[in-house]
């Protein structure tokens, strides 16, 4: 096992593979992506995650996340 694999976990974020430090929270992921928590909605393993839990929920290996927001539409 490489050092990177030991210290990080694998996520699927908006359909793309991504690694993040073990123990990182949802808030950490949003910070890494430079996303404002108030501007996105997070679906964590198909469950909508309330904003007040971004700081407490730790990501786990294999987690799937959808980060969505409002875009132009009719």
């Amino acid at each position: 096992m490489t050092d990177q694999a030991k210290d990080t976990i694998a996520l699927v974020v908006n359909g793309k593979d991504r690694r993040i430090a073990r123990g990182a929270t949802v808030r950490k992921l949003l910070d890494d992506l430079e996303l404002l928590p108030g501007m996105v909605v997070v679906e964590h393993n198909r469950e909508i995650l309330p904003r007040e839990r971004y700081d407490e929920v730790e990501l786990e290996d294999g987690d799937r996340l959808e980060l969505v927001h409002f875009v132009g539409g009719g």
Partner: protein
Amino acid sequence: MSTKTEPYVTQDTPLVIGDRTFRSRLMVGTGKYRDNASMVAAIRASGADMVTVAVRRVDLDRSKEQAILHHLDPEEFFLLANTAGCYTAEEAIRYARLARAAGFNEWIKLEVIGDEKTLLPDVQATLEAAHVLVDEGFKVMAYTNDDLIMALRLEDAGCVSVMPLASPIGSGLGLVNPFYIREIKDRLQVPVIVDAGVGTASDACATMEQGVDGVLMNTAIAAADDPVAMAEAMRLGVRAGRLAYLAGRMPRREIAVPSSPTRGMLD
């Protein structure tokens, strides 16, 4: 003393949907604009206070310019999220829940598409999703076909508004079935907003002349050469059609009737 009669001017009532009152009977979408500045200018010119938005994945490479909230102030406009692009009831319900979690309101423009070519609604799936969402406390505005029975079912399901199409989404074909639209308006208690198909201002006017409560459009404005001018035209078209409906049009006759007196002509 001469008596002076005031001209009778019909007064309109405000548009009330669910528990909210809207200033404008024109609602507009925010998609397909060339740039964000023309979108905002066009929406302001339209006079609309309700605007629709879509729920999509954040593009993690270029999130800033995409997010509609960087350009539209949710204090200025009432945001109506849609479930556009959903082909099943489950998918539409998932998108509606995500939209509500954004924290603005519990309203949803429900659309479940049944066919890629025509984008006509899957009315069975729409009704199924409407039942679930109404139970979850959503204010559902349901996009549907110009079908009276389905419109009645959606009203029975608890939708705050039923939104039959004028013609297919993005087609610009205008109002293809005024008779069915009038029939739906006559029979429903909830506001009827015609959604999709309007191409130009005369379509908006003709649609409002049927007596419906409002019109929702996107492409007709966004895809015009000058979206801001078209938005203004649509505002006026909707207003003209509404006033003409309230004023009560003259009956149609298949023979001419002179407007000037037939008596008093010279020998």
